[in-house]
């Protein structure tokens, strides 16, 4: 956000960030509307689709995101106590987790493509109606979420740089506060994606 305005009004900047998060929530909300409707219509196909997804990958990624979410929160805490070193390494860890998440995601998608499971693939065209929809939604939702992971990662990397050159410190933590808020949102979205897509029976 705007750094001069923030300087004057950290509360305002935070409110702005929350409002932005609300709109992000509704962006994904549209996909959840579709998910709810199609789950209701094709419960069996969705369950079958869910079984094709790897619980192991999903769980590892969940743990990664939860942990990274904690580490940003800790980083903010560290910054507030002016423990810059700690803050930097916690942020570094967060970035690492984000990277691992994306690598995992890449492997997962790759595996799906290998199994001929992508929109319009031959396997899905033969599958009963609904399976295709499941995978369509799966790719779109995780893709959009992945995009948010990338954006959040870039944002945090930039913040890390700012911390390193002391542009952000215990006295003016707003940028980190807001960056962390964004990262937590990315986490929250995943908290819902995980059981809805990976754990369907």
């Amino acid at each position, binding site marked *: 956000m705007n750094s001069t305005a923030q300087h004057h009004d950290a509360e305002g900047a935070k409110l702005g960030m929350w409002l932005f998060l609300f709109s992000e929530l509704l962006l994904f909300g*549209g996909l959840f509307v579709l998910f709810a409707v199609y789950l209701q219509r094709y419960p069996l196909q969705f369950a079958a689709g869910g079984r094709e997804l790897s619980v192991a990958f999903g769980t590892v990624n969940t743990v990664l995101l939860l942990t990274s979410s904690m580490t940003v929160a800790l980083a903010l805490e560290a910054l507030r106590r002016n423990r810059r070193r700690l803050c930097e390494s916690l942020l570094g860890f967060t970035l690492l987790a984000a990277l691992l998440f994306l690598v995992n995601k890449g492997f997962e998608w790759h595996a799906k493509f290998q199994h001929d499971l992508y929109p319009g693939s031959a396997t899905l065209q033969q599958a009963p109606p609904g399976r295709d929809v499941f995978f369509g939604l799966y790719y779109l939702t995780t893709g959009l979420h992945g995009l948010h992971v990338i954006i959040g990662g870039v944002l945090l990397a930039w913040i890390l740089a700012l911390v390193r050159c002391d542009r952000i410190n215990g006295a003016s933590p707003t940028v980190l506060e807001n960056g962390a808020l964004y990262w937590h949102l990315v986490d929250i979205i995943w908290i819902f994606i995980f059981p809805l897509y990976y754990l369907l029976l």
Partner: protein
Amino acid sequence: MGKVIRMGEFFRRGFLESTGEQPSLFEWIFSTDHKRIGLLYLYSISTFFAIGVTLGLLIRLELIAPGRTIVGPDTYNALFTLHGVVMIFLFIIPGIPAAFGNIMLPLQIGARDVAFPRLNLLSWWLYIIGAIMALSSLAGGGGPPDTGWTFYLPFSGETTTNVSLAVFAVFILGFSSILTGLNFITTIHRLRAPGMTWTRLPLFVWSLYATAWVQVLATPILGITLVLILAERILGLGLFDAARGGDPLMYQHLFWIYSHPAVYIMVLPAMGVISEIIPVFARRPIFGYKAIVASSIGIAAAGSLVWGHHMFVSGMSDTAILVFSLLTFIVAIPSAVKVFNWVATLYGGSIRLDAPMLYALTFLVLFSIGGLSGLVLGSAATDVHVHDTHFVVGHFHYVMFGGTAFAFFGALHYWFPKIFGRMFNEKRAAWAWGIMICGFNLLYFSMLLVGLRGMPRRYYDYLPQFAQLNRLATYGSWVLALGLLFMAVNLLIALRRGKHIGANPWEAATLEWTVDSPPPPENFAVLPTVTHGPYDLEQAGEP
């Protein structure tokens, strides 16, 4: 008319004055001053409005007689699509909030700027980029998009025209709209001057506040819907493809979840403008301040629940029709409350019929006609007959043009002296207004009638029985065009040669009238302390 002050060479140009530090164009397009950004919006929105009305004129020209008149069916389909996209996304949604809201909101609440000035600039840039992309979809590739502004699937997934570009453009415009919304909410929460309590907020600010919430919460749904169209066209996802298990109606749900609330994004700020103008020219405090505030919030909230009324004949379930029809009627109530309060404000006043007031009063009548025709659409039985006919086209032009655009013109005349420090010619303004309302009603009332007789919309050609009313409508569009042109010319002349004017020509009581016209760059040398309500006109005049 109040105090027209001749200040001769001492006339100050306020925020319009160049600081001379940068080339003058850069001073504007990279300015973070909310007033300059607002003016940028005003200029760009007016430009796109001119493009939109020209397209409207061409539509009417084609429809002057059955059969091919000036263009073929492919061009006609592109015409109404672009007319709709330009009018909705480039003119009427950003219209009042981004132009007048930007300029007046900080002034009215006693702030030096909005909460995030640079974000504000970013919104404008996104708007311009989106607009240029939308217009460039006209050229190149598969030809201009031909889907209608609703982009209904499956057709928009199949057509070979530049739909993807147009859809992406609208996505960017939506992003711009969200940013404006969150900026305004934060500004209103954080930057009110001391003493500016929630019950002392001008009603225009209240209406912007309610609008901003709709922008923040509904626009993302449009965003994802547009992403879904792109996914359908580019990746072939098939989420709405019946053959692959998708449900075409779900597209319509998602689209209208945004686009119905969007009509209240269009009209709420307009209602705010009306609530500003009427008390000032009736010389009476607004009647039922709290009821008007409550109805703004009521419209914003209830407006999010009625999207299904666009789908009564789409094959949606009867239960849903029952629910959405009921909710649609409920949402008419707060509008009625507003109308009654405005009329009541006139009672016992000392009414001046200056140009802004003329527009405000016309708004009352035209919006009522539009709104009442909305009731016909909200009732399930009658909507079946008139859905997707020119009756609907008549309805929404009455509320959008007769309502919002007339309020936009009202705002333009009301705040013109404040923004530019000059006064337009009153007599010519009244003439332009008179010509416009004649043309307007000729044009759109004919449309309501021809729709009732069954003429479908988006028809390039029609049967002979509709010829007469269509001809009338086309004549009306010429009269309307004449009036609009007259108004534009009058204002353009005033921009150069209008009389200089003091801080408060209309003797209004809101804060923007306490600073110079045009306002100085920092708005308030000392932040004001507010001691009275926005419509306590006796206290007005004191600087």
